[in-house]
């Protein structure tokens, strides 16, 4: 009844096939939801929202004197990923992260890939995210990008594409865990017989990985999470991860470099820290090496890091591999280091520093999505079909002034999933961010953050731009679950 009149609008729908029938993996979910009265579903939705409120997982609305707090929008109808789809995604992500890690190591050490002219050296050496200070570094086990969150999207054909790599300090994994917990608390019956793979082991995997990459010789290494502080928008996640790993959550002012080591101020004096899962950007981690005006970091941290007396996750300098300009070369990077073709394809990308591409981009702005190479969070972006002539003119000028900083992609018809709108369902565009840990082995968390563009017709899923989220169910094979 609730799904009556549901229209997939010609897009690939995560729940329904082209004929409007529920996909096989979603059939059980569909039956359960359809059996509920609409009032009932609304009650579950409200209970879930209340649970977020009670847990204080909120953000403050700026400019509101009464200090009104809101939760991040959450829709209780889960998004389903089948076991077969997940196998494909998982293999693709392992391959991609493995190759990108080799790429980073190469760039800061031998630069073979540049010497072999697979990538124009200028493009790398001129990137803002290239850190001279990291040249010659050998992090433990050669691992640079310990934690990554790769954004995937599906086009009209249902194929998964990589939209962007996040290899610096990707956030959102706490919402994956929290969304699941809230769903299990408020809407438990919907899980029955669905063989949803659990996500709750993430903190244990994270902790094991962080211990694995500790400096050589550190027996029972001390791990801590480094946060910019309580006013950071991802603070909840930082404290969440510290809590569930059972490690300290530190700020820059808790740390000091003494006798060549990083120490934290405790009630019993100074204690050594061996591994920092830092959630502060490269620019801010050490005022002596990077931005001197940073108040968030630790003076002298990089020197200790270079001496191999503290490990940083992710390593400084990983930003070079998720630069949007480098993105266009990732399939070549994968081929270069592994000899394999990329399992997960890139979205076709026009790079504006090549004259032919730039000309095409400038002539077809109304069809393309243009992105600034060094921005994230949905900023510095032009969605062609939704833009005004004036905005296109602005971008044209910006592109011609600094071609290195722009890429463009065809506007994808992102897949959609049903969300509750008042008393019925409407399709909204979604993406998927799975999380990958690189330690002794490469671990892909079976799940991920499904972000939803809640504004009707919008293609931008970022929470800063009116996006919400859904629980993401990766299904196990029924016979594999005992």
């Amino acid at each position, binding site marked *: 009844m609730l799904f009556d009149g549901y229209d997939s609008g010609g897009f690939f729908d995560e729940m329904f096939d082209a004929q409007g029938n529920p996909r096989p993996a979603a059939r059980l979910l569909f039956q359960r939801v359809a059996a509920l009265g609409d009032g009932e579903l609304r009650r579950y939705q409200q209970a879930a929202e209340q649970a977020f409120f009670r847990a204080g997982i909120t953000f403050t609305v700026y400019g509101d004197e009464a200090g009104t707090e809101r939760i991040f929008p959450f829709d209780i109808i889960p998004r389903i990923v089948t076991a077969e789809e997940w196998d494909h995604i998982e293999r693709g992500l392992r391959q991609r992260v493995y190759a990108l890690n080799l790429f980073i190591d190469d760039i800061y050490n031998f630069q073979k890939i540049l010497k072999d002219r697979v990538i124009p050296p200028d493009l790398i050496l001129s990137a803002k995210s290239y850190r001279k200070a990291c040249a010659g570094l050998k992090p433990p086990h050669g691992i640079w990008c310990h934690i990554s969150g790769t954004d995937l999207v599906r086009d009209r054909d249902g194929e998964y594409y990589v939209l962007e790599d996040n290899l610096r300090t990707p956030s959102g994994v706490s919402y994956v865990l929290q969304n699941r917990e809230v769903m299990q608390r408020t809407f438990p019956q919907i899980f029955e017989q669905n063989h949803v793979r659990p996500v709750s082991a993430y903190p244990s995997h994270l902790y094991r990985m962080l211990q694995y990459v500790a400096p050589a010789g550190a027996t029972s290494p001390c791990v801590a999470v480094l946060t910019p502080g309580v006013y950071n928008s991802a603070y909840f996640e930082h404290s969440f991860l510290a809590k569930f790993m059972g490690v*300290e959550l*530190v700020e820059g002012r808790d740390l000091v470099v*003494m006798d060549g080591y990083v120490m934290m101020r405790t009630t019993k004096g100074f204690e050594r820290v061996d591994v920092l899962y830092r959630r502060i950007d490269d620019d801010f981690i050490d005022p002596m090496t990077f931005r001197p005006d940073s108040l968030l970091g630790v003076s002298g941290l990089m020197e200790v890091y270079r001496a191999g007396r503290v490990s940083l996750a992710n390593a400084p300098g990983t930003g070079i591999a998720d630069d949007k300009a480098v993105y266009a070369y990732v399939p070549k990077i994968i081929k270069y280091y592994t000899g394999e073709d990329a399992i997960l394809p890139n979205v076709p990308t026009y790079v504006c520093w090549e004259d032919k591409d730039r000309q095409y981009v400038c002539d077809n702005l109304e069809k393309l999505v243009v992105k600034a190479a060094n921005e994230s969070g949905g900023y510095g972006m032009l969605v062609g079909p939704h833009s005004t002539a004036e905005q296109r003119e602005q971008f044209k000028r910006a592109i011609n002034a600094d071609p290195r900083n722009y890429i463009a992609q065809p506007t994808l018809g992102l897949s959609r999933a049903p969300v509750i709108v008042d008393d019925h369902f409407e399709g909204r565009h979604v993406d998927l961010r799975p999380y990958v840990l690189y330690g002794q082995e490469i671990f892909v968390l079976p799940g991920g953050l499904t972000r939803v563009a809640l504004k009707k017709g919008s293609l931008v899923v970022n929470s800063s731009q009116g996006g919400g989220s859904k629980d993401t169910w990766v299904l196990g094979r029924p016979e594999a679950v005992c």
Partner: protein
Amino acid sequence: MLSRVAESLYWMSRYIERAENVARFIYVNTWLSLDLGSEYIEQWKPLLSASGDDAIFTEHYDQPTKQNVIQFLTFDARNPNSILSSVTGARENARIDRQYITLEMWEQINRFYLFLRGGAHDAARGIEAHQDFFAEVTTASHLFVGIMDSTMTHNEGWHFCRLARHMERADKTSRILDAKYFLLLPSVDAVGSPYDDILWTAVLRSTSAFEMYRKQFQSISPDRIVEFLVLDGDFPRAIRHCVLSADNSLRAISGTPKGTFRNAAEQQLGRLCAELNYVRVSEIMGRGLHEFLDDAQLRLNLAGEAIHNAFFALQPVPVMSQYQRGIKE
């Protein structure tokens, strides 16, 4: 544990206790005015002295009317010690400590805060806070302490919370006793009158001590009440009990044996314990209750500063070579 985390646990706990005490003051004073009837002139000014915020009040309000004082002490964000400010402060600190405290504790603080926000919202629309409102504030604080005791490991962080709670409570009990003695009394004539009985009862009630006092002493007498609220070792809001508990937690944190000290915090608290352990109520009254309480508050403040210096404000010591050391000496 991290000094910064210890510090915010300490303040989280103090702020919760502070909110509870302010609510008690208001609750009892409202009740008092009902019991004494029209002959009694409502006394709201002493509440301001008891919480120590007269100066800020006169800055923002004309008269210490019931409505003004209640608004100021309950919801006014300009008053750093109002119930709402205290609970907001507790919640901000809890947010910092979220990875350290239990989910149950965090949820209770959050509930407490949302409850007060609702009250503030009503007050802004002219709906007066119900009597039950203040009782509920007290209960919310008790609930928090109970949840903390039964869900959190009784480790260093827990001891910092317990230390803070007893420091705050000792201070507040001394203040309310002090306020009664000098301000709650309408005039000297009232000493020994039936009013006096009711006023002393109010002091006992505002510290939740009425029933427990009755069990021990039956009749109302100022000396006995002072003895009970200052020197009792077992009543949880008596100053001596609070100071002894604070001292116990301090030593559980540092590992310093009783009867000795290794920092100024242990020294201050240890001294205050000794004083409270060995003084007689007749000596307190002979010296003057106000002077005694004033001195106790001063020493509690000094102990608070010393705790800050000993545990929260750790500074790196520059490493000096043998050579430099030689020159210095």
